């Protein structure tokens, strides 16, 4: 039942929202901001897909097209994917899951949102004042010597947002170490927290390197100091080494929290413990660690030495092992489970399929010989969208539906939620599977015109994107409606054992009226919770 006073009803003033130190309200601030960024990035993708419906240039010039895919990449990577699960669901759920009143540093948490918004607004200014045409990777020498766009302003926005990432990572690490409820040992932690912990370690260790890289880029562009330009003593590959040292682990910043969400969903809607809990937990840390050793696979055709390429290729195969362990363990969890096809579970099942396709095609790209053929083709575009959109965004939507009753205290329409989940799965595959074929046939990425023989696959892809766009818009309406008019949610609509379900929906300002004490493992569905999900 909805309690009389909760974090939503303690105060209704704008001041109470914009100066709040309550992790739950800060999560809502992030959530609202990320919706805006998601739809700006999505608008750029829509224009790209409309342009690519025909082989010739109909809608935009090559110059505008360059700015569109750059805008799409920068916004989606740094202002949606990276903060999505940690800063919204993580911010809301972490203290509830560990039985704490708040994160370890509540003011730092609020500051990280303001820094994020400053970075986001700076980047948006660069994009709307004239745009950036370097691609999201800011590769030199284009970004330092030739591009006349607002590249440094956009990079400054990303640089600023990086501090927000570091603060959030630091906050989660300290919170998970210091604020766990009595009895909540490391092996009793929900796997979502193991994933967020691994993500936070990457955030703290990798993000400073991105900041240094962007500063060096600005230094060379403004002061002519030879860092990347070989004519003045620099090394042209140094930028790529530094950039990918951050940006490949950033892929795991994006996907690890998604994997964490999937653990919760698969377990809850199979009514079973996660198979091989310790393996899954340690695999999160293994992915975080080994993920730092593979960045050179982005540089196989850059002129990097063959020895380095061989080492990075080998390590790229190694990093697939802990990811594969997770997929096998989720599948084993489903085996003989009491499976309920509620909307969050549909997203979770979609995630497993899409992430697996994305992961397996990543192994193609880890092969030196095939990568030479596939580099800069639509095969790469399809591969990373299967991971980041098919994986991460699907997990984000799954987690959002799972914890929505806790966040808002309201139940949404199962019918519309299931319809959206199914549409997202089919729309996504129709959009991106044809791109594997286009890439294998040699269609390069980042061109707004292409030979006519590629049109069939491009039309299919654009058609799929239309379905996907509609499916992504649907939750905005039915979740938005439910937030105001939905049925009141009970404290524990899924009959789940996690601590977050033991407080009211929505939770009170300080989460728990009495300090919870943990006496059992995290996924004890068989012993303590035989009941069916109440929302089913």
């Amino acid at each position, binding site marked *: 039942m909805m309690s009389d006073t909760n974090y939503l009803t303690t105060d209704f003033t704008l001041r109470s929202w914009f100066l709040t130190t309550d992790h739950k309200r800060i999560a809502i601030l992030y959530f609202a901001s990320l919706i805006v960024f998601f739809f700006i990035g999505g608008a750029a993708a829509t224009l790209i897909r409309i342009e690519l419906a025909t082989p010739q240039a109909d809608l935009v010039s090559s110059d505008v097209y360059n700015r569109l895919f750059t805008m799409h990449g920068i916004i989606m990577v740094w202002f949606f994917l990276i903060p999505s699960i940690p800063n919204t669901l993580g911010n809301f759920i972490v203290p509830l899951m560990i039985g704490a009143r708040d994160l370890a540093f509540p003011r730092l948490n609020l500051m990280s949102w303001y820094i994020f918004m400053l970075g986001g607004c700076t980047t948006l200014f660069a994009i709307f004042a004239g745009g950036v045409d370097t691609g999201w990777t800011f590769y030199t020498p284009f970004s330092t010597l030739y591009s006349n766009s607002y590249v440094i302003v956009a990079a400054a926005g990303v640089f600023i947002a990086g501090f927000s990432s570091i603060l959030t990572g630091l906050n989660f690490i300290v919170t998970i170490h210091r604020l766990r409820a009595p009895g909540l040992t490391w092996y009793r932690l929900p796997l979502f927290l193991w994933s967020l912990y691994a993500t936070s370690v990457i955030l*703290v260790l990798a993000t400073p390197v991105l900041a240094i890289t962007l500063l060096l880029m600005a230094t060379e562009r403004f002061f002519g100091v030879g860092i990347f330009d070989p004519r003045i003593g620099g090394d042209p590959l140094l930028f790529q*080494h*530094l950039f990918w040292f951050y940006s490949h682990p950033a892929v795991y910043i994006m996907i690890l929290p998604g994997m964490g969400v999937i653990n919760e969903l698969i377990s809850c809607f199979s009514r079973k413990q996660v198979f091989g809990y310790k393996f899954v937990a340690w695999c999160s840390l293994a992915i975080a660690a080994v993920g*730092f050793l593979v960045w050179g696979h982005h540089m196989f055709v850059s002129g990097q*030495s063959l020895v*380095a390429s061989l080492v*990075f290729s080998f390590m790229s195969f190694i990093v697939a092992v802990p990811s594969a362990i997770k997929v096998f363990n989720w599948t084993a969890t489903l085996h003989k489970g009491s499976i309920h096809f509620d909307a969050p579970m549909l997203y979770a099942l979609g995630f497993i399929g899409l992430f697996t396709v994305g992961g397996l095609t990543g192994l193609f790209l880890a092969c030196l010989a095939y990568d030479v053929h596939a580099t800069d083709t639509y095969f790469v575009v399809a591969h990373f969208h299967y991971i980041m959109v098919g994986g991460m965004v699907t997990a984000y939507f799954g987690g959002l539906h799972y914890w929505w009753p806790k966040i808002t205290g309201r139940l949404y329409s199962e019918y519309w939620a299931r319809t959206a989940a199914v549409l997202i799965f089919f729309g996504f595959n129709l959009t991106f599977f044809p791109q594997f074929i286009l890439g294998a046939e040699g269609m390069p990425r980042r061109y707004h015109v292409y030979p006519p023989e590629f049109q069939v696959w491009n039309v299919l892809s654009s058609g799929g994107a239309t379905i996907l766009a509609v499916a992504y818009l649907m939750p905005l309406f039915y979740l938005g409606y439910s937030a105001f008019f939905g049925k009141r949610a009970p404290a524990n609509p899924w009959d789940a054992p996690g601590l977050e379900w033991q407080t009211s929906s929505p939770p009170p300002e300080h989460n728990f009226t009495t300090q919870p004490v943990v006496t059992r493992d995290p996924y004890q569905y068989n012993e303590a919770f035989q009941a069916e999900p109440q929302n089913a």
Partner: protein
Amino acid sequence: MTDWRPPLALIGAWLGLLALLALTVTLAYVPLGAGNAVVALTIGTIKAGLVATIFMELWHRRGLTLVFAGAGLFWLGILLYLGSMDFLTRT
């Protein structure tokens, strides 16, 4: 309201960093060949040590804080090792 003054150690470390900066700039103009890079990196390492021990207060820390600081250093080593592997094996 009491007047707050920065501890002497912080002021000393700051002055030390400025002196090392001046030394870096001065020695950059002395023709030492490959020795210039060695000198610059050595001074840079001393500066990083000052920041870590005094500004970050690692000198007085134990346990988990040192583990995380060590992890940062270890990861820097990974960047330098795998990054330099490319430079050293190019043909």
